[in-house]
Each structure stands twice: as C-alpha cells, then as structure tokens.
C-alpha cells in the first residue's frame, strides 16, 4: 500500500511541479466533465487552451483580463506571505473603480490627458482606504481580517449600486443603472490600435518588478514577511507586527484599487453595477497557483485569463453554462492544494505488514 511519509526537508522541485500537476489534474477532470455533459472533450479543451491564445487579438484579450488579476494577486501575495488573510480584494477593487469613476465623470473632452494619472491615483487611494478599515479593526480590536475584508466586499457592492442607481446615474441613460460614459481624455492609452490592451499592462509589469524587489531585496518587505512567518522572531528582531499588517493591507488595497481604476477607465469607460466580475476572488487562486511569487503570478494570471475566455467561448459555441469558468478555477485551486501535500510529504510504497516480526525483519 502507499504511505504518506514526511520529507526530511520540503521539496523545492515539488513546489514548482505542484502547479503543473494541478493543471494536469484539472484538465483530466475537465475531460470527464465534458464527457458527462455529452460534449466533445477535445473541442472543450480547445476552447480553454487553444482558442484563447490563437492570435494577437486573442493575446490582447488575455492581457486585458490578466492585468487586473496580476495587480491584485501581487498585493495578495504580500498579504498571504505576511499571514494577513485579505479575502476582500474584490471590495478594494470596487472602491478603486468608484474613486476613479468619480474623477473621470468630471472630465470634459477638453480636459488634458494627464487626468489619467489623477484617476489612477484616486483608484489607489480608494482601494487603500477600503483595506484600511480592515487593518484598523484588526489592529485596534483584533477583529478577524478574513471576515471583515470579505463582508466589506458586499458593502462595497452596495455602495456601487447606490451610486449608479442614485446620484451618479446618467440623466440621459434611459434610467439604466449606469454613469455617463467617461470623456475621451480619461481613457487609459492603448498600446496598439485595434487592440484593447492598454498601458495597464506596462503598469502591471512594473508592479511585478517592484513587488519582486520589495519581497526579496528590501528590509521592509522582509520584515513584513517575517511578521507573518514567525511572529515571535519578528518581535525578537524588533520588527513591528502592526507595521507588517498595515503594510500588507495598504499595499494590496492600493493595488486592487489600481486594478479597479484601470478597469473602469479602460475597457469599461463607465460605472455600472457589473464592475465587479470576481477578479478579486480569482486573484486569490492566481496568487497561490503562482506560488506567492511575482513571476509565478504572471503565468498563473495568464492561465486564469484563459479560463475566463475559454468559459465565455464554451458558453457561446458549445452551449455550456458560464459557470464552467468557476468550475475550472475551483478545480485548479482544489488540485493545487491537494498536490501541495507532496511538498512536505512523499508517497512511499510499503509492503503490507505481515504477522510475525521475524518475517518483517527478513523482508
């Protein structure tokens, strides 16, 4: 029989292989799923793994989805490394969009293009403020940050709904719950004509480099992580665990807010109740599949974007429900957590125990 045996030290190879194993398991379960639904599994897999990367246009669409995922997941990686369980990036993302939208609504066609910078900064501030509520409650009253941050997502959704149904509704919008379409100068500049991908991609890649430096080359980043990894060691070293909490939450709130601002003034161009599409939650998976490492996060964000686009394609071309995207995302995280066991344990084949000790001694 197989036996799980604790390894002498965690396996680095397995830490890197684990996401690939998880992907393979996800694909296999996906095939079974397609068969059970009576769909052609080859076509199903094509929707998820071939169609989304077929052309330059397809890649641009991947990037449009990957940018918010990368930005949010970078902040979450810092949080999770610091043992701060920010589950509410979705809410911070919404607040970022609201703050950015509030500024963008004021623009006219004559406003200088530099307003984009103001809009993005506003988004960062919005996300930070939302995360600061969680940080404050945890710091001051030791409130559980998982619950607080998660609950604040729903509050954020309500705030957004209130604004677009109420004071911010477009007077010429036929009573649709939406703001005015933002004026042209607010639009985040696109990188190529004809493709939707914009400078957000560059911002995200700069953030990847920045987070890599912060996590692995700056003392502050190291202190934040030690505060989570070994609180007693942090105290012994004289690092403040409060600083670690605030750094992690403000950084991730700011990045999620930035993602929201880029989304609102990029692909969306106005605020509607449909701003939140679950990037904040999907980014949790992205962060873990990417091993909480900025470079890994780039790859896993691309993968997660493929799931998004594949799900949409499967919906329109194979008449599958849209929730298939969520199923694939869940499968991936589930398989990842399972195969992560092999980082600390290994499977060993042991002969079934025989009755007498002598027989065992002989074997």
């Amino acid at each position, binding site marked *: 029989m197989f036996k799980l045996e604790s390894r002498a030290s965690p396996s680095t190879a397995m830490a890197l292989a684990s996401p690939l194993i998880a992907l393979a398991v996800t694909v296999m379960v996906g095939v079974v799923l397609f068969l059970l639904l009576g769909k052609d599994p080859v076509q199903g897999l094509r929707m998820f793994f071939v169609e989304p990367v077929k052309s330059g246009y397809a890649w641009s669409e991947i990037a449009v989805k990957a940018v918010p995922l990368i930005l949010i997941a970078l902040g979450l990686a810092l949080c999770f490394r610091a043992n701060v369980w920010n589950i509410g990036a979705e809410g911070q993302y919404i607040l970022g969009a609201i703050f950015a939208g509030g500024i963008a609504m004021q623009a006219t066609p004559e406003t200088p293009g530099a307003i984009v910078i103001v809009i993005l900064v506003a988004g960062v501030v919005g996300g930070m403020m939302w995360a600061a509520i969680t940080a404050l409650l945890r710091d001051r009253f030791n409130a559980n940050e998982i619950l607080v941050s998660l609950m604040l997502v729903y509050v954020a959704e309500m705030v957004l709904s209130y604004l677009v149904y109420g004071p911010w509704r477009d007077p010429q919008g036929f009573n649709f719950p939406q703001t005015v379409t933002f004026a042209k100068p607010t639009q985040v500049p696109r990188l190529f004509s004809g493709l939707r991908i914009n400078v957000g991609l560059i911002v995200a890649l700069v953030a990847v480099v920045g987070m890599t430096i912060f996590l692995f080359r700056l003392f502050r980043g190291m202190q934040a992580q*030690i505060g989570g990894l070994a609180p007693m060691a942090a105290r012994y070293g004289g690092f403040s665990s409060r600083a670690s909490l605030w750094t992690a939450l403000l950084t991730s709130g700011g990045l999620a807010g930035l993602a929201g601002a880029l989304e609102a003034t990029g692909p969306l161009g106005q605020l509607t109740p449909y701003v939140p599409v679950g990037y904040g939650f999907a980014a949790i998976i992205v962060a873990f599949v990417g091993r909480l490492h900025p470079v890994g996060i780039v790859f896993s964000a691309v993968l997660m974007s493929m799931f998004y686009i594949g799900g949409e394609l499967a919906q329109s071309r194979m008449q599958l429900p849209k929730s298939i995207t969520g199923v694939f995302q869940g499968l991936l995280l589930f398989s990842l957590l399972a195969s992560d066991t092999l980082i600390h344990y290994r499977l060993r084949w042991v002969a079934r125990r025989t009755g007498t000790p002598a027989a065992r001694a002989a074997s």
Partner: protein
Amino acid sequence: MSTPRLQLTGISKQYPAVKANDNVSLTVQPGEIHALLGENGAGKSTLMKIVFGAVQPDEGEIKVDGKTVQIRNPHEAKAHGIAMVFQHFSLFDTLTAAENVWLGLDTGETLAEVTARMNKKAGDYGLQVDATRPVHSLSVGECQRVEIVRALLSEPKLLILDEPTSVLTPMAVQSLFNTLRQLAREGCSILYISHKLDEIRELCHQCTVLRGGRVTGGVDPRQESNASLSRLMIGAEPPKLVHREARLGDVALELNRLSLAPDGIYGVALSQISLQLRAGEVLGIAGVSGNGQQELLAALSGEDARANPGSIKLFGTDIARAGPTRRRALGLHFVPEERLGRGAVPMQSLAANTLLTRHEALRAFGWIDVAATRALAAKLIDRFKVKAGGPDAVAKSLSGGNLQKFIVGREIDAKPKVLIVAQPTWGVDVGAAAQIRGELLALRDAGCAVLVVSEELEELFELSDRLVVIAGGRLSPSVPARDATIERIGQWMAGLFDAKEMTAQIKEMSHVQA
C-alpha cells in the same frame, strides 16, 4: 533468573533522515530501575515511543513478561501494564487535576471516585497533590506529580519517565526518587530516561547507554564513574572549561525594582527585581522553569517594553521602554531559548536570518546586500563550526545544536557589551555545549557582561561568577558561585530566600500596598 518484565530485541527504526534506533536490545527485570542514558538525538525518545506504542518499529521484537507482543498504540501499551510520564505534560490548564485525570480514564467512575483514588495513591507514595485545584495554579513539579499519580492509577507493571527531573528543584528530585524506590520495591519496573549522570548513578540499578541510535553499553551505574558513563555516552570525556579570574568592569546592566504585571492570565508577575551586572562577569540565574524567567528575559530584551521608566538601565541609559532594535544598538544582545521561530525564522536561509539581529548588510533605503548576508552567514558557519549546508540552508534544516551555535555565534560576533543567554545548551549535544560555554567565557574574558538563565544547575555552576535564583517572580540575593552550594540554591529555588531579605521584601510590599 525471573522472567524479564520487558525485553527488546533488535529494535530498529528508520526515519527519512536518520536511523533513530539501530538493532537496540535491552532487558528490564521486575522491580528494577533501569536507566536509559544518551545525549539528545541518541534515540532514547524513539525507543520509548516504540515501547509505549506511539511509534511502530521497522524491525525487532518486544516481549512483555516473556510473551511476544505488538504494541500498536498507547492504549494497547496500557493494557500490557505500561504507563508513561512524558517530559511535556498533557494537562488542560482550565480543568482541575482530578478532572484532567478523570477525562483520560474510561473506567466509568465518577469524578468523586477518581478524586478519592487519586488522594489514596498520592498518600501511599508521598506525592503531595491537591486534586481539586485547577492545573494552571499548579507548579511544574505539582503537574508532574499529577501525571505520576495518573500513571499509577492504572497499576502499571512498567513505568516510563522521560527526563523527569528537568523541571524539579533538587529537593523535589529527592522526594521523586523516594517515590520511585518505593515503587520498585513493590515490584514495579521503571525505565528512567535521562542524560544526568549523577542521578542515574544514585537511583538506577542498571543502565543502557545509547549513542547515535545504537547501544554502546549495558552497565551497573553504581559501579561506574561520571567519566566512564560519559565516555560510553559521547565516546569521549567532555573538555574541561578554563575559568579565569574575573576582571570586573563598570556596571553594565542595572535593574532597579523592576515589577511587571503578567502579559497573559497564565504569566508570572515580576516583583521588585533588582540586580547589577558588571562588565567582565557571568551572572547565572537559576530557577525552576515557569518562575518568571520568560517574563524577565522579555523585559530585558525589549520584546516586552512595558517596564517602568528607570527600572532597566544599560550603562546608565534608561532602556526600560526601548525596543529590541534600540537595545541592540546600545550593545545589548539576547539569545532566546526557542531557537526555531524566535531566534531564527525556520523557513528562511541562514543568510536571511542574519538580518534578524544584524544590520551590517543593509544599504540605503533598506536595500539588502544579499552577498553581504551570505558572507556573514558563511563567516559564522566557519567561525563557530556550524554543520550546515551553507549560507543558503534554511534554518529548519539544521540540528538543534548547530542552529544554537549559529544563533549564539550571530550574537557573539556582533561584539555585544551585554549578552543575555537563555538556556544556552538546551538540547545541544555535549560537544557543542562545551563549545558554546567556552565561547561565552571567552566573551566574558574580553570584557562583556554575560547573563545566563538556565535550568541546568551544573551548567550555571560551571559558567557563572555569581549566582542568583528566580522564584515566583522574585529574585534572590546573589552569591559568588564558589560559595554557593546545591543545597542553598535548591532552597532558594523553592522560594526560601534569606529571612532578612524576606522581611525586607514583605515590608516593601506592604509599604507599596499601603
């Protein structure tokens, strides 16, 4: 000869990294007190876990009263009449002693019946236990007596004790020995795990010595000397420390009536602690664990910076409210007793771990010069003979002794003016322990003030120039180590300081209350 109570033949157990037991055999007769002697990591604990059914051997045979048995779990061990008292107690703090024992029994007795049986057992063996007191209010020694009474309730034929004296005062050790001798006279066999040679020679009839998982000797300890036992245990005699005459300098660290309320509900309050530590001396603080050592150390290191202003002074500077970083900048370094998780971050490399207390590798804006951290780690590994895979090895991968050498080395290498060390050689093999003690003395000779907190009296006598004792959050007067006797220190450990001192303190306390 009668049938042996316990007979182990050819026991082997392979763990992923080490062979914990390699063809171990031993025999315990009825009524025999049998010592299992070995250094940390020699395989004693694994062997006992095998006997108690907590670990399964890969090979070998276990016979109880002449019958071959397979002990698959502690429950089966109990059925064979085997009971064990672990080094770390498994008692719930919020329950009373009797409730704790009652919970672990499945005999269908009522709480009152169990309490009565406990009191009877305790009376029979001279174990003072108040079964109705909540466990958090019991001292460590009392908790141990509860565990022993619990073990005795199952009327064991074989009682295993794992390092039982590490938490006891010298007097309590003697009363424990009396209990064990009485048990042995009544026919109960005792397996006594220890690395303390004197105790084994005093108490035990037989001794099996383990080294590196193998049996290196089976002797009658009463016929042996400490030196001969130690040769069997480590293969050599530990090197003697050279203790030079202290050259005292200025007062380095001064505590002035330091009082501190406990941080949590189970902490110990520090009360009116005053002491002076001079440059060039080693001051040892003895005491049974849980008497305020943790709290005192945290107040000294700055991890707990709540002390009254003026109550802690470093070279005349008030540091009572300063954090660890500031205290280190002023030359006060600290080695905590927990190595993994406090003295070092388990999952980070040794190079990264240098940054915990050493900031030489930091550049402008907190930029980490990674090459410099690796160089520092490599230097420490080399200078303090740390066995490690190199600067990039994670702290967790080192053995306890080697990690301790690294951490002590990291602090010594920082050229501290005051070094505070908790349990410098706990769980460290004899060779590494001797090296660490030697380094501490060298530091003292170089003019550093050294404060050592330890539960090992032998170690304190060996290292210290002066000794004080902490008991119940209070500090005894100090005594030069050469004038101190085990008896006197033992009395102090029980909280009985000089009468004069006591009255003075009582006066002071009533004064404060008034």
